[in-house]
């Protein structure tokens, strides 16, 4: 337990004092939130309806998809995990503790968004705060696991950016953050079911705001939970201690199994 606390405390502090991680955990998502609150609410007043959950999901994506995977790859490339292995740091800790740290930072920033969206920008407050907190926590944990998996499967610092953006950019465009799924073209709407952000938004809408969602909010909760668990299990299984060591337990393409719940939901939504 002492090792876990010491390790977590170090990772958490790093999330604040490392300039890149500070940027992805707080400065970029909260700065974007303020800009969006100032501009989008004027251009599109309807944005206020989904502003709080959308910006919470954005904060989570920034911390877990943009902030988490890069340092995992850089540490592996620098031989830091070799040092950890020699000293008995388990692979599960190497992955889960930075992921948990990113999740905690995301929850702190999410709390700032949730509590200020209404008073600062007229964002609509949730009708069920407990459900709002629960969905926020689930989305953060699920995305944290997915971020760890991206960090494991990316072979180098260049590819990690590509993989992260493969989740982040579509989430912004068709994940229900900047516009509701109902305004998307009918052919595109089901594809959004491949994105954790879209499921998080449907869960918020159905459970925290008590409104009709594009698909069952409980389906969304199930997909986020299953996707997170599978991603974490795959990340630990595929984890490689050393960039120079060719021995690994499975092909990186196995990581695609983490998409299974999302693909299944796509079939249900499209059907």
């Amino acid at each position, binding site marked *: 337990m*002492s*090792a876990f*606390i*010491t*390790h977590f405390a*170090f990772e958490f*502090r*790093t999330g604040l*004092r*490392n300039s890149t991680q500070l940027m992805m955990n707080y400065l970029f998502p909260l700065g974007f939130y303020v800009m969006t609150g100032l501009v989008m609410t004027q251009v599109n007043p309807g944005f206020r309806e989904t502003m709080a959950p959308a910006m919470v999901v954005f904060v989570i994506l920034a911390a877990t998809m943009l902030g988490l995977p890069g340092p995992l790859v850089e*540490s592996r490339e*620098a*031989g*830091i995990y*070799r*040092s950890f*292995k*020699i*000293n*008995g*740091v388990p692979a599960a800790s190497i992955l889960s503790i930075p992921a948990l740290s990113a999740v905690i930072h995301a929850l702190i920033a999410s709390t700032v968004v949730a509590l200020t969206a209404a008073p600062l920008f007229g964002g609509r407050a949730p009708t069920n705060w407990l459900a709002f907190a629960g969905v926020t926590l689930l989305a953060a944990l699920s995305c944290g696991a997915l971020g760890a998996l991206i960090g494991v499967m990316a072979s180098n610092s260049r590819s990690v950016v590509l993989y992260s953006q493969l989740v982040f950019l579509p989430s912004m465009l068709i994940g229900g953050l900047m516009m509701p799924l109902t305004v998307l073209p009918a052919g595109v709407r089901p594809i959004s079911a491949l994105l954790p952000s879209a499921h998080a938004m449907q869960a918020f809408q159905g459970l925290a705001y008590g409104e009709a969602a594009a698909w069952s909010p409980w389906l969304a909760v199930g997909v986020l939970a299953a996707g997170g668990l599978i991603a974490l299990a795959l990340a630990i299984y595929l984890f490689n*201690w*050393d960039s120079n*060591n060719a*021995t690994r337990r499975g092909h990186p393409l196995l990581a695609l199994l983490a998409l299974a719940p999302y693909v299944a939901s796509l079939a249900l939504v499209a059907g």
Partner: protein
Amino acid sequence: MNETAVTVQGFTKRYGAFTAVDGISLTVRRGEIFGLLGPNGAGKTSTLECLEGIRRGDGGRLDVLGVDPARHPRRLRDLIGVQLQVGGLPADMTPREAMRFFAAYHDVAPRGDLLQRLGLGAKVDTPYRQLSTGQQRRLALALAVAHQPPVVLLDEPTAGLDVESRAELHALMAELRDAGTALILATHDMAEAEKMSDRIAILLRGKIVAEGTPREITAAGAGLTKVSVRTERGLLLAEGYEPPAVVSRAAQDEYAIYFSADPAPTVAALLARLKERDDRLIDLRVERPSLEERFLEITNGGAA
């Protein structure tokens, strides 16, 4: 202190078609420093990495105090201390945090005293990336020995260190040895290996080509002793005198230099010659062959 700590028996490591380590055998006892020497690519690092449990061998047997590193990596952790390579810690981690971090995973109390002793007292809260190479190496050694492991693996521990830090590290290594720790020292620094090692193995192309105490290894070579003589009138240089047991001779900076297979009769003959020719001795130096010369002889010749 004769208990065997590390056994390497017929050990082989391959990378594809390339054989990095080719059936080597050696033992390291508790309370000794064992030098592992060899040019780049000789197989030192591969051997160490397999002993550390980072890589698996392809043949033979490794044993660290009864533990097979590949099969029982968790049991190995508290038995070995490994000096991490430069860059092996997170850039933002301070020495204080690193000590707490690794001590926690080894379930021991952090050793702030080691950081002080190794000259890191003023840098305990400085991020790793801001430490000099020498400070990073000293931190690596402090972390390697903080949990008091019975076996310590050191890879170029003093490279890039100033004279004072180097002496402190050597003192610490000697202290560990005297306390019964087995140390394996992989180094390119022949003077360090000769000074610190109780026994040495020289690796060349994956095989051990020489093994023994530094004295035994140097004695096993051509073994020519260098005798340098400078006199007031320089007669030895002018005459081209050749004393007994001398294999070859040279001249450098007013010194007549003789490479002798048996220095005693050579020196005696030189002194007698000076007395006979009424020349006065200014300087006489007798230098036995160094480990470095023997190492070069082996690595250039390819055999012991």
